[in-house]
């Protein structure tokens, strides 16, 4: 009798034998008041996953509406759907996604530290994020907002009759959580690296986090100022964006994009960092061109502040400004190309295996390449005039943000899941999900490139019938994509409780995070490691890492 019970799944739960950050204390208080970077990463993981599915739900409704040229919901409803989809996905999912979850979890582990430099500030970041999210969700529940995630004035400041203020306040507040996270990362990376872990021995994920943090700190205050001015304009009508009293609505766009273009790199740079980890681990090779990959992150971070005007080629911006922003936009593409070539070259003569994280990584390279190359159409002045404001833009940035950033995020989550939870997930399901997501993604967004060149403007609740075939294709793809995102949610939740024990290093990967048990103890390392080798030294050519 007892053997029968033992064979039933769930009755013999695998359990960790060691005390770790997850089982050290199970009380709710211990979670809500934790200053452990790993637990804060989990808090973020739960919060942003929730926001992802809220934002995704709006996307599903949008794609449903667009099956029919005359639309299925009222235009004001559709306008709110795309606005809330954008606001939630950009500010509450994509921007915090990799830095706040994987970054929070991994930065101290990868550099051999016991925590971030300012653990309490780290917890504060999460609370600020939650307060910001609460304002935005309040705006959603209390009627929604219909300005587009770009909040262009004077529509947002004077004409919109929706919850602009709570939404702007939510974006304003949550920005501070980004700033504090960036600050925490920069100080931690400077001051808390393990002995022997020199700058050029750092994993490239850390370089990417550092570059992202620079943008967090320099860029985010500008969106805060912009949202603040928008609020003042709407409440008190101070006139800064109102042409009727001498203001300039275009000024808003300059300020908005001064943050929001670098913000695109906040979303993609961490993904690039994840890529370097995945490609090396699953080909068991040192990264090809370490310094080129590392410095290209900085080149991107710096140039990204100088290209905002390419969002404004058709605003009546002067020809000369257009030319300068165009050439700089081409320039920012080069470091990204360098990264793609180096990842590809890393595979050369490697020992490549295809577990789920690697499939996401390869998917990233393909989709990011397409996203990047279609960016050239928009950096080119003559073609941008035609494509600006159409579905081509929508397709392009979804290839970067969803095909790129979300693929990298999922790849990273699959890669470090055994470290985070100590459990394995069913790899076959994970590979299947990666495939479903890849197919669903392309079917959703590729037709939108064609729609854009044909001239279909974005943010249209109803549209001429000739665009229907491509829209139906896109909506069909979206339903596949939606299913693709639900599969990992299910097996991750399953794995958290029932997954087989992973052990400290299930992939045979290099990096300090794999030298400590899974899940790691609260203090990360029993003894601080001393590093004597380069990153990704699978061949063991630069010496041996010793402990103590």
């Amino acid at each position, binding site marked *: 009798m007892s053997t029968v019970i033992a064979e039933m799944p769930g009755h013999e739960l695998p359990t960790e034998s060691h005390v770790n950050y997850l089982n050290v204390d199970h009380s709710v208080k211990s979670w809500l008041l934790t200053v452990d970077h790993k637990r804060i990463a989990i808090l973020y993981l739960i919060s942003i996953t929730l926001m992802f599915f809220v934002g995704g739900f709006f996307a599903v409704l949008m794609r449903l509406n667009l099956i029919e040229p005359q639309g299925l919901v009222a235009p004001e409803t559709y306008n709110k759907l795309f606005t809330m989809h954008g606001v939630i996905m950009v500010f509450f999912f994509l921007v915090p996604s990799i830095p706040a979850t994987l970054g929070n979890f991994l930065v101290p582990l990868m550099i051999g530290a016991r925590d971030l430099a300012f653990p309490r500030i780290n917890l504060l970041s999460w609370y600020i994020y939650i307060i910001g999210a609460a304002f935005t969700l309040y705006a959603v529940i209390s009627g929604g907002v219909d300005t*587009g995630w770009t909040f262009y004035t004077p529509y947002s400041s004077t*004409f919109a009759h929706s919850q602009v203020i709570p939404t702007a306040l939510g974006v304003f507040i949550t920005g501070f959580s980004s700033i504090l996270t960036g600050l925490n990362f920069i100080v931690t990376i400077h001051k808390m690296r393990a002995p022997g872990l020199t700058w050029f021995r750092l994993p490239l994920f850390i370089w990417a986090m550092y570059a992202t943090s620079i943008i967090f700190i320099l860029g985010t205050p500008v969106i805060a100022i912009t949202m603040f001015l928008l609020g003042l304009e709407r409440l008190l009508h101070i006139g800064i964006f109102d*042409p*009727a009293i001498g203001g300039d609505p275009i000024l808003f766009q300059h300020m908005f994009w001064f943050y929001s273009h670098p913000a695109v790199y906040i979303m993609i740079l961490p993904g690039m960092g994840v890529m370097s980890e995945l490609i090396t681990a699953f080909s068991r090779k040192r990264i090809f061109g370490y310094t080129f990959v590392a410095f290209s992150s900085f080149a991107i971070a710096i140039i990204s502040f100088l290209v905002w005007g390419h969002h404004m080629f058709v605003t009546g911006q002067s020809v000369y400004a257009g030319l300068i922003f165009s050439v700089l936009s081409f320039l920012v593409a080069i470091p990204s190309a360098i990264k793609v070539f180096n990842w590809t070259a890393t595979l050369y003569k490697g020992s490549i295996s295809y577990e789920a994280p690697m499939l996401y990584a390869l998917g990233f390279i393909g989709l990011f390449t397409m996203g990047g*190359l279609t960016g050239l159409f928009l950096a080119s002045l003559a073609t941008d005039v035609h494509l600006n404001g159409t579905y081509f833009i929508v397709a392009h940035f979804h290839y970067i943000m969803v095909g790129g950033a979300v693929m990298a995020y999922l790849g990273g989550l699959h890669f470090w899941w055994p470290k985070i939870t100590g459990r394995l997930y069913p790899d076959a399901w994970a590979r299947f999900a990666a495939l479903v997501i890849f197919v669903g993604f392309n079917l959703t967004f590729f037709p939108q490139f064609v729609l854009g060149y044909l001239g279909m403007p974005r943010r249209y609740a109803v549209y001429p019938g000739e665009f229907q075939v491509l829209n139906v294709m896109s909506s069909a793809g979206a339903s596949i994509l939606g299913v693709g995102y639900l599969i990992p949610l299910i097996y991750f939740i399953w794995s958290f409780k029932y997954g087989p024990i992973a052990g400290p290093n299930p992939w045979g990967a290099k990096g300090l995070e794999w030298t400590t048990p899974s899940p790691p103890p609260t203090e990360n390392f029993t003894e601080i490691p001393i590093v004597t080798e380069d990153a990704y030294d699978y061949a063991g050519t630069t010496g041996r890492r010793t402990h103590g």
Partner: protein
Amino acid sequence: MTGLVQFGLGFLAQMAAMLPLHPPTASTIAENVDLLYYFLTVLTLFFTALIFGTIFFFMVKFHRQSPDEIPADTQTHLFLELTWTIIPTLITFVIFVWASVLYVQNSRPPASSTEMFVVGKQWMWHIQHPEGIREINEMHVPVGQPIKLTMTSEDVIHDFYIPAFRVKKDVTPGRYSSLWFQATEVGTYHLFCAQYCGTDHSEMIGWVYVMSPTDYAAWLAGGSKSESMAQMGGRLFSQLGCQSCHTGESSGRGPSLAGIYGTSERMRDGSARTVDDVLIRQAIVNPNSIALPNYPPIMPTFQGQVNEEQVLQLIAYVKSLGPEERTMSSK
């Protein structure tokens, strides 16, 4: 067999008709933009295929053979790094120059352009022809004639977009933006608003009718309006009482407007400004922001009393005032 081939070709043709890859090509610049677009498309496909192909090749060729296989190190190759930095840089430079030359060429309307006026308003397009005809969400233009649009908005930012002409420009309140095109094919083409402008943004659409010059002349003649824009502006000028100050004499309380359009006026701070559409509009809606040396700031604002279409009519009127009309305006 031939039937099958015929069916196949017919099906493909039908598919191609259902799924075109570009909008109608109906302006002088459309083909040039398409050429760049297709070049970029080929480039994108080439590099995507190159990257994908290389990855697939490596994946198969360097598949892990045994669980404990450790490959030998590959050294970073400076020559390769420089190659794949410099070649893409050169390619992007070529694209930049190509696209920019096209853009700069397209940015200046030819001197022979006919001017037309567009006012965007939630959620419709008002079009005015200099001859006085006004249209809503429809624009009739003659084929082969360069048309320059001067555009502004009554409320929020809109964007005037004709995909078949590959032209687009934001229409912004408080500013005049301009856009020009020369239609090459008679036909009916979409006109879209491409900047989100509120609830019925997607209904702010219309049609551009490109007509042969004779049809266009007939259409113009059939219009009910007998007054030109300048005449309408002149009527407004007296209705609003403008002539009580702008008498046309140097003794008037306001400067004479005769022959003033296009001249350079000295401001009180010593700077000089050209009297153009922007300055005249500013003088009407925010007169005291223009400080003239010999005139006190006594002009009231006409903001709210005239809409943007009427401002354009007033500008057309001022523009029409040659020096010889001095006496007329002082009547």
